């Protein structure tokens, strides 16, 4: 490939911590790769693990779910619930052969603008390595 592959990442961020953390990264002008696109939800607990499967189907090369650090959830326990769900979804995806780099989860607090950058950069870099998601995206289907 002559042109460098640029992954497309869909991220689900909780409103209170990670979205605010990403906002802070912005306010602080911390630069990071532009490959990641955020969907705001109120809580990481809102993210249905099937969203991950759906995002991969819809053409994402990787997915990130980010919430508040344990104990900091604005809704008390949403991130704990999410952690369990995604621990399992991640194993399941992995088991059918979806590379681990395609599903990521992080804790980023409202004050961790710098961490947000690290997370995004890390995820994007790993996905650059992993290449395009070709296992079961819809767009590969011959209509």
């Amino acid at each position, binding site marked *: 490939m002559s042109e460098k592959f640029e992954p*497309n990442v*869909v991220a689900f961020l909780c*409103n*209170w*911590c990670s*979205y*605010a953390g*990403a*906002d*802070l*990264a*912005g*306010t602080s*002008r*911390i*630069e*990071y790769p*532009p490959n990641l*696109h*955020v*969907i*705001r*939800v*109120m*809580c990481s*607990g*809102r*993210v*249905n*693990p099937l*969203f991950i499967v*759906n*995002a*991969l*189907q*819809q*053409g*994402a090369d990787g997915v990130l779910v980010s919430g*508040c650090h344990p*104990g*900091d*959830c*604005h*809704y*008390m*326990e*949403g991130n704990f*619930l*999410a952690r369990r*769900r995604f621990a399992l979804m991640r194993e399941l995806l992995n088991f059918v052969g979806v590379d681990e780099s395609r599903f990521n989860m992080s804790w980023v*607090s*409202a*004050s*961790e603008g710098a961490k947000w*950058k690290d997370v995004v950069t890390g995820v994007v870099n790993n996905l650059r390595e992993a290449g395009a998601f070709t296992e079961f995206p819809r*767009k590969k289907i011959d209509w």
Partner: protein
Amino acid sequence: MSSKPKIGVYICHCGINIAKTVDVEELTRYAVKLPNVRVARDYSYMCSDPGQLMIREDIRKNGLNRVVVASCSPRMHELTFRKALVEAGLNPYYLEIANIREHCSWVHKDKQEATAKAKKLLQAAVAKVRFLEPLQEKEVDVEASALIIGGGIAGIQASLDIANAGFKVYLVEKTPSIGGRMSQLDKTFPTLDCSACILTPKMVDAASHPNITLLTYSQVESITGYVGNFQVKVRKKARYVDFSKCTGCGLCAEECRLADRVKSEFNMGIGNRSAIYLPFPQAVPAKYTVDPHSCLFLTRGKCGKSPKCVEACPAGAVDFEQKDEIVEFKTGTVIVATGFDVFDAARKPEYGYSDYDNVLTGLEMERLISSSGPTGGKLVLGKGDGEYVPKEIAFIKCVGSRDKSTGNEYCSRVCCMYTAKLAHLVKDKLPEANVRIYYMDVRAFGKGFEEFYDRVRREGVRYIRGNPSEIFKRNGKLVIMVEDTLTAKPLEDEVDMVVLAVGLEPRRDAREVIDLLRLSQSSDRFFLEAHPKLAPVDTATEGVYLAGCAQGPKDIPDTVAQAKGAASSALVLLSSGKVKVQAQISWVNEATCRGCGYCVEICPYTAIELVSVNKMGHEVNVARVNEALCKGCGACAAGCLSGSVQQKSFMDSQILPQIAALGGKS
């Protein structure tokens, strides 16, 4: 009734904040082509009046029924634009914001890449807005009272303001007296007013205010409910002294078998008290308290033949039968004013705080130097025969502040000034003493601060730039090892006394409050405000505000200002008497709900319950949401297998198109 989505897209330049990195014209051209988009416009400041007017006019003239604003974070202006929609007669929840500033223009440099990303974000917003549904904001009554946790100057000030406005206040203080840290201070910088002189009247005002219920020696056990309708449970710890009888005469304390043998918290352990005590002379309420941790009767079950205090009290107020009491009440808002702890100097062992008696903290120095302190304001060290007056006195600043090794990267904001103040007081008491201050920087940013700093220097206090590396004892003297960073010379400074300007830290028991109210902490571990600039007294929990050092280090004027800010926020709620409840809450499609109760278990607010309904003649269980309790986190929606419970504005049918837009090629 579904009508055709007619979407207006408004792209903000944010001056050049967005326009510099995102090609807004290109974005506008792109937007018009998106499905269902009627108009797309760009403008320098969408949030400004003309910007909003543009949206309102389009809604009216072009019959728009959905609005997408591509601008700064929704956390910034979502409300602004919602209001614009309402003013134009549109439901405020027909709005979606594409964050192309914080998440795009500010974090990317390449204009092409940033524009491409902005397009995607915009496309996703358009995809979602099409499926948004109008939501009704319901209102609930606000209980006309406030709970204030913490009776320092912040809590006192907030209480007074709210009480003066005519609302009931419950002021809960953990220790036997209100007053907080300020009551421990001697004079206050930069004006050098006597702390007690300006604080005590306020304490008394608070205690005697008809609208204020003072709950000292008390702790909040639980807070449930939601803005406007919190249910509070407070534990009033047993004082073993009948409040109504105690006259505050103090005879009990004099007679106490442990008189003067228990370390006084108020005096930072420098002075002693009895097991039955008044924390300090001006304490409010001026009633005695038996310390259950030291009292012989309470710890061992007996105190001589019978407790001396009981015998001594002429009013018969001492009552060992007393039990903790639970007080319950409802309140509309909560202000958290739990203040700070000082840095534990023992955590910097190189300064010998735990080893040498003549190494003190700033707060200890405040007590030592205070005329109401253990020495009656005499600046002496040592006890009895060993008593001596220090001559060489050194202050070390930034102990436990601006220091990665202690985990406190922040500046404590008051140490520079209180050091200067203490140095001045030393000079005042012991004019011939040699006072020097080791510092990294001097920060004198406040009103009158720089002038004060100047004055202290003129008084002969030496400022030496250097960060001492070690303090040890040599020949009965303290030796400070330090490099003068201005002259780059290593120094060994022999002194009689060292004062460590310890920084401010979050209360060590802050966790309790976090758990009570689900507050968040910022990276410095102080309570996190909703927005560092625009909502510095609000928290993420509606109806809960912050005041004073609980939110971060600050001096008294800032504390008072913030307390007044918090009070005014609370008053807005209280005086309007109504509050809108979350509209973006969950609802259950009873037709498909299978009654498994997963959502019921998941909901952290017990907002969902199973109810029995009749489905075609069969009694079956389905879930139902209590709208006032639901906070709209959506955890139930992600946990419901059949997709029967949905979070409004974040429904599967709204998020899936967003995913599709972001996943696909733009």
